[in-house]
């Protein structure tokens, strides 16, 4: 450090290289244990397929989802692999564009609660004291209130739009990640290397940013993935009951129309079965992926084998 400036730069680059190496090694370690979890890999595959579909829906969809291209309630055929809805729009195209909306809403809602979880969880776990007390009381309150009625009421009070649906879902999901991350930070705080970092004169903010945050970040990510698997059916529920955004097609909106127009009473199974199966697939995939990640990252959970 005391040597000329040139040497300092070199050492810094070395430090960075070393750090990158460390991260690479950590990721390789993670991947080695993750690889053995078949359910996690399957979930990852579903996630990638869904993201690709929602990134380029126009490539996969044969028609414009809003355009009337056939007769009402046409059963599945070569021209329309999943039939048509009550006004004659192509169901496959709607399903593909619906994937986009559902995935975006699911990810954003989970992302909001991920951010809140990371921020409040680390602060609460690190500083403890009064702040922790107050935050824990608030999360306790939100965890006691039945989540679905609360979500419904919030979505009902706000105007129906995809942003408000996301907000309603996020308001209900944030306490869980806060709690998990808080208890993780709680145990991290007592570790020797954190104490050592403090002794050599690191400030609280520096310890938080440098040592604690990178440690809890992967766990937060795992929780976020689990939450996506929760947010997507929640969106479907809100849209289905009539609180969704009518300008965007999502799986929930398809089910809303299928329910409102009585597709299931006229026997048009192709109108409501595919979106339901997609939701089912997403829940199973994301829950398994998130749990597999959590199990790898959090050895305490390893004894609970999931599917």
């Amino acid at each position, binding site marked *: 450090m005391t040597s000329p400036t040139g040497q300092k730069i070199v050492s810094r680059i070395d430090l960075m290289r070393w750090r990158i190496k460390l991260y690479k090694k950590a990721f390789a370690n993670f991947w080695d244990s993750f690889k053995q979890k078949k359910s996690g890999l399957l979930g990852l595959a579903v996630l990638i397929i869904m993201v690709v579909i929602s990134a380029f829906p126009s490539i996969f969809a044969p028609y414009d989802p809003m355009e009337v291209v056939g007769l009402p309630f046409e059963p599945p055929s070569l021209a329309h692999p999943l039939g048509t809805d009550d006004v004659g729009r192509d169901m496959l195209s709607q399903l593909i564009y619906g994937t986009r909306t559902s995935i975006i809403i699911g990810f954003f809602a989970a992302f909001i609660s991920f951010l809140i979880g990371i921020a409040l969880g680390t602060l609460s776990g690190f500083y403890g004291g009064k702040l922790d007390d107050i935050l824990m009381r608030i999360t306790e309150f939100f965890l006691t209130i*039945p989540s679905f009625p609360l979500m419904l009421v919030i979505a009902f009070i706000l105007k129906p739009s995809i942003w408000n649906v996301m907000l309603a879902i996020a308001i209900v999901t944030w306490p869980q990640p806060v709690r998990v991350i808080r208890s993780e930070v709680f145990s991290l705080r007592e570790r020797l290397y954190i104490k050592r970092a403090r002794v050599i004169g690191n400030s609280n903010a520096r310890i938080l940013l440098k040592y604690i945050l990178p440690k809890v970040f992967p766990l937060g990510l795992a929780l976020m993935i689990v939450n996506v698997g929760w947010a997507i059916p929640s969106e479907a*529920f809100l849209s289905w009951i009539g609180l969704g955004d009518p300008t965007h097609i999502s799986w929930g909106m398809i089910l809303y129309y299928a329910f409102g127009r009585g597709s299931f009473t006229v026997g048009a199974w192709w109108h409501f079965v595919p979106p339901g199966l997609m939701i089912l697939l997403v829940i199973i995939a994301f829950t398994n992926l998130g749990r597999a990640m959590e199990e790898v990252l959090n050895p305490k959970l390893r004894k609970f084998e999931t599917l």
Partner: protein
Amino acid sequence: MRTYVLSRIIQAFIMIIVAFVFSFFLFRIVPGDPTLAITGDPRLPLETKRMLYKMFGLDKPLHEQLLIFIINAFKGNLGISYQYKIPVTQLLLERLWNTLILLLPATLLSILIGIVMGMLAGWFRGKTMDTILTSLATLFWSTPSFWAGMFMIYLFAVRFHIFPTGGMMSYEVSYTDWWSSMSDFLHHLFLPMVTYAVIYSGQYALVLRNSLSEVLSEDYILLAEAKGCTEFQILRKHALKNASLPLVTMVGVNLGRLLLGSITIETVFTWPGVGRLVYEAVYYHDYPVLQGIFVFFITVTILLTVIVDILYTYLDPRVRLR
């Protein structure tokens, strides 16, 4: 012990008051003129508006309104429905019976299915039977209840005409004797009840399976085996009792999901219960009804959580000692 019960009850009471305050302010965020929501007419003269404000107590300061709201909520007065023009409490009580008639047998049935599935999966853990049952339970647990309801109606009512599509009774028929009306009611009850039970059995099965496989690796099970107990005896006498403890908390904790089931299943099957009332309130923008049901749901949840907690201390001596 007594102090624990007392402190839990006081906690619950505070929690309920906080929840009332919370829902009071939650419904205050609603943008727009409340008189518009009541009458649906934007051309209302100013005097009528003032009269309505006075009638509903909206001219009073906010803290006074809050106090009135809380006192009224405790008295059971939750306002008047915009759509039905009758007190919300009356509406709620009428619908509550229908909900209970559906939910109680359905919940019992789901616990029963869950216990059987979880028991078999836990007993045969690691074998094919376990894989099949756990996959099935995960499938049930993941299925959106409203979609399952639509699917069941399509399959059993529309396709095969075995059960009616919805409602509690057939309206077009008048019954002469008690038995035929009862059988018609049961005919209507069957499909929503089974749908609900199957969907919610998954979580019970998964929890029981996990706790059973944990209990079965304990030392006292080994001891029982060494004593020469048969497998069935071990399961019935030693393992199941301890393994089913988490199920008790499950019932309390997952009340939120049960309420969701009540909303979705009742809506799909046009069952005239509280859940269907939620759907109607959303559809007709009936704020007082929604607020009333929300307050009611929260109160019930908090009370049930306390009851389950207290019950748990009686069932599990390890908790009692602390």
